[in-house]
């Protein structure tokens, strides 16, 4: 198979097609518009449906409808548009329907700016919508992983009948790397027992909050997500075996941190890296064997730090330091110097 140099966004779009997705409805927003632009010609090519909707709300609503028919349905946005979808996501989750949603994070709140950021962590991981639900959240850190996780996202969404989010960032989405794609997969909506196609000669089907029909709703939901927590944690670890300080970072930050680990090791500092690949469920298992680690640091492109709370809990309240990025991509040297401050006991802030 030949490797093709491709942008993260284009790779997401192609991977969705390969993963059997034949329905996209969404609205342009930088830095994810290439997903729409790509699918605007690619979907018709494979006989799928591409709709540029009048808004993100309409997009997530169409995805809801499409998902009800068993189609592998897909939409994407960035922060502001992702916010507008939260009600819809809550509905889809409550109706136990599968779908895949990409949030290409940009920096800041409100209008925000289009450069890379990681400030939508809570919105994705602590459900930005109302009520009790969770979404499986993938955080790729390369274009190839973006492809692999996108394909997996459609499978997992269907397996758990739950929305799956891909929380990426402007850097991973705009950068190009060589990638390989799996073969084109066809998807048979009619093989799914819950997929709507009219009642035919049987009982009619209903898609609404399962709360209305599931008498043991509370426990059912708890068990469902406990299973996901048990089975779906994914992470990468770099030099954690003998580390005294473990950095925790995902997405673009994790690539810079990988560089930091190398630099630190060269200077004799025992630094390692845990890179969550799933943000929900957070890979707490990765932390279980790290009994001897003294310090943790959460490295996020967020000025207020969000993931750090999950790190603190996973680290069972050992000292955990925020290393914040913000208006620009931080350089490895900056992080290294923050690391040295921690070793030297000079880091001011700790959880």
């Amino acid at each position, binding site marked *: 198979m030949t490797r093709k*140099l491709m942008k993260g966004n284009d790779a997401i779009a192609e991977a969705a097609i390969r993963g059997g997705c034949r329905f996209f409805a969404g609205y342009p927003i930088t830095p994810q518009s290439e997903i729409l632009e790509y699918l605007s010609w690619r979907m018709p090519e494979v006989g799928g449906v591409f709709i540029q909707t009048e808004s993100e709300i309409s997009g997530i609503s169409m995805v809801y409808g499409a998902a009800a028919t068993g189609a592998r349905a897909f939409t994407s946005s960035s922060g502001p548009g992702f916010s507008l979808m939260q009600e819809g996501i809550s509905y889809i989750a409550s109706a136990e329907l599968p779908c895949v949603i990409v949030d290409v994070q940009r920096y800041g709140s409100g209008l925000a*700016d289009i*450069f890379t950021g990681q400030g939508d962590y809570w919105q994705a991981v602590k459900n930005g919508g109302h009520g009790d639900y969770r979404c499986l959240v993938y955080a790729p850190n390369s274009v190839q992983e973006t492809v692999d996780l996108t394909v997996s996202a459609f499978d997992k969404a269907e397996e758990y009948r739950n929305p799956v989010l891909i929380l990426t960032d402007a850097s991973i989405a*705009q950068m*190009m790397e060589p990638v390989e794609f799996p073969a084109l997969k066809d998807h048979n909506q009619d093989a799914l027992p819950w997929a709507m196609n009219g009642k035919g000669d049987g009982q009619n089907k209903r898609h609404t909050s399962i709360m209305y029909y599931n008498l043991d709703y509370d426990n059912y939901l708890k068990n469902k997500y406990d299973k996901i927590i048990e089975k779906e944690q994914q992470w990468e670890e770099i030099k954690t075996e003998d580390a005294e300080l473990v950095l925790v970072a995902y997405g673009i930050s994790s690539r*810079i941190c*990988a560089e930091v680990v190398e630099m630190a090791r060269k200077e004799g500092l025992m630094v390692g890296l845990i890179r969550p690949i799933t943000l929900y469920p957070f890979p707490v298992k990765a932390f279980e064997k790290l009994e001897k680690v003294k310090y943790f640091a959460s490295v996020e492109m967020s000025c207020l730090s969000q993931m750090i709370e999950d790190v603190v809990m996973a680290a069972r309240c050992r000292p955990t330091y925020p290393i914040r990025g913000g208006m620009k991509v931080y350089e*490895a*040297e900056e992080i290294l110097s923050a690391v040295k401050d921690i070793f030297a006991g000079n880091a001011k802030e700790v959880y």
Partner: protein
Amino acid sequence: MNLIFAGFGGQGVLTAGLIMAKTGVDVGKNVTWIPSYGSEMRGGTANCNVKISDGKIASPFVNKIDILVVMNMPSLVKFEKNVVPGGIIITNKTLIDQYDFRKDIQVYEVAATGIADELNNPKGANIVMLGALAASGALFNPEVTWKGIEDFFLEKGKNNPKNELVFRKGLAETRKKQG
């Protein structure tokens, strides 16, 4: 190998970087390409970071530049200081005339905009720059470089015979100066 391609918005620096990245893939390297992406969508300067390596590439961002391909003055001013000692700068002499370069780096100057205009291929100034880059021998040899360019445009269905002209001219002019 860490490169930055920088210039004005319309000068094709993103494409030049992309062609080199693609060429890197073709010869079996690991590659990353990432555009600089700020809040101003229009006008201003543009650049991309390219890494080409045999090993795994961690961060796609280039801090220490091995090769700087730069097509206008503001970008040169911005990036020169990040070039590693012994590193290489390819400049567009048409727009960057008198400049007092650092002494610990190697500079290849080529009148890219001028040559492209001359040869009636005003959009080809970036290809001239790649000719100069090939001449420097710092990345790919001329054959590989040209094949990369040719494949890139063939794939896009935008085959322009004038591209070879400007490439060869950029190559030749730069070699000439090296003497």
